[in-house]
């Protein structure tokens, strides 16, 4: 029989008692494992046989990794992919939402149709778009079928046959500018620019996620009252001006939350790229998650794989932590 004192203590600390299991689980399975991974990244462990002796100097695995052309390419690709993907997905999602925001027949059909790709697995998307962008059997055939290439040849130009995900070129390279700014810039082993092969991957990711962006914006648009539009109209704003100066600015909170959600998709992306193009020619489409996967499970370089995953975690924190701080502050 619990005594009165125990019962009193329990009733005072009800919240704590209820929280303890989840706190404990989070401590072990999230923070404990992050700590363990970080520890592994400092060790000599690079075979299947466990070796937990610390490396000397202790940060050497991180230094080796940063010097690897492959990892440099991964960081470049993450930045380029993130910018392309978020810009395209938000632009397309917003456009679809604005189209569907008006009353017309078949509206709900189109809403479902545009949202449908979001229900697919990234692996499925990756395989389908891999076929679409196959340079010999994919959309390049349309250039022949539609007579575009015949037209170009008639004009004395080369036929259009992009290599898509197999194109190793990096355009808009800023290496020279970097070298001018900073003496170390000349020693980069990779081209800092936009890998052409990454563009089709961003298109595939956009196709999958723009329906989700549309749904977010439709929710936002529904919350804007008709009187706001009426007021804008009375002030003489046309349709375009109403969206540009009134509606889209009012949707800013939605845009920010959507961008954050897309950002974490892009930082973690693995399955889409793995199925669609793999590491790509000259690592043109490699991403940190594939690097982690290969170092852990094919190379058995556990220290390097965990080091890369810690860098990925830090990259996410750079974005998520300010967002969380902002959210908590605005709630107070």
């Amino acid at each position: 029989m619990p005594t009165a004192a125990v019962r009193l203590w329990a009733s005072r600390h009800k919240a704590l008692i209820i929280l303890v299991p989840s706190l404990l689980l989070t401590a072990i399975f999230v923070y404990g494992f992050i700590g363990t991974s970080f520890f592994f990244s400092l060790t000599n462990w690079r075979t299947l046989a466990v070796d937990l002796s610390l490396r000397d100097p202790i940060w050497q695995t991180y230094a080796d990794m940063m010097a690897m052309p492959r990892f440099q390419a991964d960081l470049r690709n993450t930045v380029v992919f993130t910018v392309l993907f978020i810009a395209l997905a938000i632009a397309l999602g917003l456009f679809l939402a604005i189209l569907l925001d008006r009353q017309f027949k078949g509206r709900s059909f189109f809403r479902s149709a545009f949202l449908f790709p979001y229900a697919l697995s990234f692996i499925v998307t990756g395989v389908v778009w891999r076929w679409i962008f196959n340079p010999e059997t994919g959309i390049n055939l349309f250039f022949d079928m539609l007579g575009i290439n015949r037209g170009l040849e008639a004009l004395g130009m080369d036929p259009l046959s992009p290599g898509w995900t197999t194109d190793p070129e990096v355009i808009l390279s800023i290496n020279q500018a970097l070298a001018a700014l900073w003496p170390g810039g000349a020693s980069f082993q990779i081209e800092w620019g936009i890998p052409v092969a990454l563009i089709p991957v961003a298109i595939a990711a956009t196709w999958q996620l723009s329906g989700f962006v549309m749904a977010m914006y439709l929710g936002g648009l529904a919350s804007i009252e008709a009187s706001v539009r009426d007021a804008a109209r009375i002030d003489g704003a046309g349709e375009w001006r109403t969206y540009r100066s009134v509606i889209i600015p009012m949707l800013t909170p939605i845009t920010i939350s959507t961008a954050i959600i897309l950002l974490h998709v892009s930082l973690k992306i693995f399955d889409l790229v793995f199925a669609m193009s793999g590491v790509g020619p000259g690592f043109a489409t490699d991403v940190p998650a594939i690097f982690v996967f290969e170092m852990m499970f094919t190379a058995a370089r556990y220290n390097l794989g965990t080091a890369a995953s810690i860098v990925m975690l830090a990259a996410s924190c750079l974005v998520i932590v300010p967002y969380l701080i902002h959210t908590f502050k605005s709630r107070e």
Partner: protein
Amino acid sequence: MGGNPPDTWQTHHGAEVQTQYIGPGFTESLHDLYVEEGWYELFTPELLQTVSHDGVPHMVLINLHRSNILWYNKPLLIEHAVRVGETLSYDELFEIADHLQNSGVAALCMGDAGIWANGIMFENTLVGVMGPERYLGLWEGTTAFTDADIRQAITTYSRLLDYLNADHAALSWDQAVDKLLDGGCAFYSMGDWAYGELTQAGMIDHEDFGWVPHPGTENTNILVTDGFTLAKGAPNPEAARNMLRVMGQRAVQQEFNLLKGSICARSDCDRSAFSPYLQWAMDSYNTTVSIPTVVHGSAAPADFRQALNDALTDFVVRRDEEAFAATLAREAKASGFGQ
């Protein structure tokens, strides 16, 4: 590592099974099974040594592949008035390649969506240029990765890369076999698992396709194998042992290898049951030096294999011979061998 192993798993001979699995103690000795089945007499001592630790075997080999074959589309070469004899030198190959290229045919097939396929061509060229002894020295620490031979091999390999089919990065290794069959390219440097694909497609030896050893590797057999182990702490050790017993049987190896495009790991299979190519492969196996493959893990540990794949991915696009050689030398050292 997690203490919950499968009963058995497929792996390759040499470094892969020895450094990854036997060394750290993940596998059981199969000595009693070898004695019961009489396998000590049926596998050659050279093979036994590659699956053993301190003289005790830990793996049953089921097949032997030869990795250094240059396959070619015979009708396509006849159409372009090219004749290929029993062997081909690099000079002859480059001459033919230029001739084909001028007629608009990609001389070399490649499907390196998985980069290891290009690794096979590199490895074959490395052996072809350096010779087997110096190649073995790379793994035993008697040949330096900075050696002039290596640079020569890289240069030759780089030259070969100029003749690939344009869509090589979009194809997997087996799709490149299809391309060879369709006449989209002429030669393919690939192991004889490609032979399995060729026969599945109904192609006939010496008629639809032909083969020569990869240039410079006439007296060498770059060996790729498949075999199975018994896990330490296997949940069903008896069932696993029985499975290994089956895999070592002559009838099983014979049937399996007819389909796989490889030869028996046992030395007593019936030669006459095999096709012309496989008979050729058997004879060549018996008369050449077998050396371990790095691409399939037998020559060096997994971390080096990954490093080689990464260096190749970079090299195929950037063609920086110096950086490629330097990376190999550095990674060999980091992996615990080389000079």
